């Protein structure tokens, strides 16, 4: 839906645009889909000039089909799999978080979503030495807990002498966004930085964590307004294009609500959102068996493009 403007392509002059507009052709789509002979007659423009303009516009604005084999090669070289820091969760996700995709963690309050997000941030920052962008919309980000996790992970690797925790903490950037427009602004900011390839502050960024996406969208959904849905779809499109274009792994957390008819728990944000993430993991905390005395945390796979759904693993939130 791009408006025809002078300078959009050579040969498209201001007078041409005025004449076209007088006949109801305002956007590129209108131009390309209209019958050029007809237009040439009505606007008294040269047919050859119109054909030349159309060719350039088509070249500029249409999508090109790609070869499946080429696409496969490209994905093989650009996709990375990021470990989540929890081996059982990695097994569930088929060895980790895939870049270029949106992964969703959902669960009841207190089931451990923020903890898993912190664990992912710690693992990526410490293990892979990559930068992490953490968008926090609930105020649940606790740096001291992250520090605890980093310490625990370093102990496993026996690098206690030179504790790299400080650099690991500096690689994690936290933005507090409490409003959907702030989320969109932060993502736009990220897009600008990545496309300009400013290496100094961002560093090699491979993962974006948003905790939680439902807290900012929930106040807008429902009622008679459809604006909430539109903004939610805007956000989902932004996340997916960011993930695909810049090879990022996007992790979002979602709430669960109770289905009014059946009384079972289901993910929040409705059916429209359920198409956005390619992988969905449900976190639950169950009352443990009598022997253990602690609550058990279980993660089950609700949607995945690679694994069969219904897989369950036990999580250990250290």
């Amino acid at each position, binding site marked *: 839906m791009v408006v025809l403007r002078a300078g959009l392509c050579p040969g498209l002059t201001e007078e041409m645009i005025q004449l076209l507009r007088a006949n109801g052709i305002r956007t590129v789509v209108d131009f390309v889909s209209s019958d050029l002979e007809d237009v040439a007659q009505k606007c008294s423009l040269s047919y050859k000039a119109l054909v030349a303009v159309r060719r350039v516009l088509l070249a500029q604005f249409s999508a090109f089909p790609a070869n499946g084999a080429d696409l496969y090669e490209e994905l093989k070289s650009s996709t990375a799999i990021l470990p989540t820091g929890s081996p059982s969760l990695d097994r569930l996700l088929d060895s980790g978080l895939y870049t270029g995709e949106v992964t969703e963690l959902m669960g009841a309050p207190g089931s451990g979503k923020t903890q898993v997000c912190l664990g992912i941030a710690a693992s990526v920052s410490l293990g892979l030495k990559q930068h992490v962008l953490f968008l926090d919309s609930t105020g649940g980000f606790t740096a001291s807990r992250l520090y605890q996790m980093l310490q625990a992970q370093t102990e496993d690797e026996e690098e206690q002498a030179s504790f790299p925790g400080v650099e690991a903490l500096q690689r994690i950037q936290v933005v507090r966004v409490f409003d959907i*427009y702030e989320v969109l602004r932060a993502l736009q900011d990220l897009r600008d930085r990545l496309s300009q390839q400013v290496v100094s502050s961002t560093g090699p960024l491979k993962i974006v964590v948003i905790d939680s996406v439902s*807290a900012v969208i929930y106040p807008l959904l429902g009622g008679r307004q459809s604006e909430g849905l539109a903004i939610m779809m805007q956000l989902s499109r932004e996340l997916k294009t960011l993930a695909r274009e810049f090879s990022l792994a996007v992790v979002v957390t979602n709430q669960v*609500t109770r289905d009014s008819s059946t009384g079972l728990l289901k993910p929040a944000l409705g059916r429209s959102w359920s198409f956005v993430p390619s992988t969905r993991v449900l976190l639950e905390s169950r009352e443990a068996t009598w022997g253990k005395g602690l609550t058990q945390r279980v993660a089950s796979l609700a949607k995945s493009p690679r694994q069969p759904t219904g897989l369950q693993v036990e999580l250990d939130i250290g």
Partner: protein
Amino acid sequence: MQREVGSLPLAPALRARLAAAGFQTAQELLETGPCGLSKEIGISKEEALEALQVVRQECHGDAARTAEGLGATRKFTALELLEEEQAQGFIITFCSALDNILGGGVQLTKITEICGAPGVGKTQLCLQLAVDVQIPECFGGVAGEAVFIDTEGSFMIDRVVDIAAACVQHCQLIAEAQQEEDHLKALETFSLESILSHIYYFRCCDYIELLAQVYLLPEFLSEHSKVRLVVIDGIAFPFRHDFEDLSLRTRLLNGLAQQLIIAANDHKSAVVLTNQMTTRIGQSQSTLVPALGESWGHAATVRLVFHWDNSQRLATLYKSPSQKEATIPYHITPHGFRDVQPPAVTQGAEGTEMNPRKRPRREEEKQ
């Protein structure tokens, strides 16, 4: 600059017209200018000017804010946040077991929710916190003021007087034991009158007043910058009766939660809410769960549930970003919220690590 028009905070009707006219990015809007815009979409020049101002603010907003300083943007590295958290104080509850499971006390910049059956002690803890937030820093407090928003009418001023008197007496005992300069100085300003004068009390009778109060809160907090605690006693009450449209209730509550977390974050204060319990009827049994539905459970960062076990009151930490789940007993005495029995005299190692200025108040507990 390439911000999509759909993602800008404009009115939906305006957005629809812009999309129909073919505008895609904010850049195109700014290039067109107000006259061109009003002609193309068919709105008045004033409206076009307003819309462009909003767009300009959104796009240039970030640049302007980073020039002003870190306070306006909310971007930090985890290291900076860690340093900030370690320097932050906690609001102690005078019940050391509860402080321990909370990790030192009620945390600033977070929303803490207290759920419980009637009569278990939620309002008592709120009153105790409203007094405790004012404890001077040399005694281990945060020296702040308190805002108390009451929806149920359960704020008893006589009780606050009792609790405040006990707190002042406690601090006086510490000062006598330690005999330090700053203690005596602080005690001059820490008296019953000053405690009562720094609790700002609001009474809201229905949910509209409550919503209005919360929306006006940021202004109030910027005028009274010493406020470190906002208590809303009874957030469930106005929303539970008289509400037919449940989806509206969910939306309002979620919006309220976001407003509160913004206020907590920007003004570095703790927000404490109390919630009621409701019965969920399962297949074979019924359980008591916090009211206001599933989605409300996500609003609070820390959730405490108070319940009875025969005649002993227990507090369980159900949800916390940094502490494990635990249950402890507590007691409500004429002096306020306290531990069940005097805890061990040996200095807890965590106590000194958390806040080196926390004095050993355990010896003085035998009141």
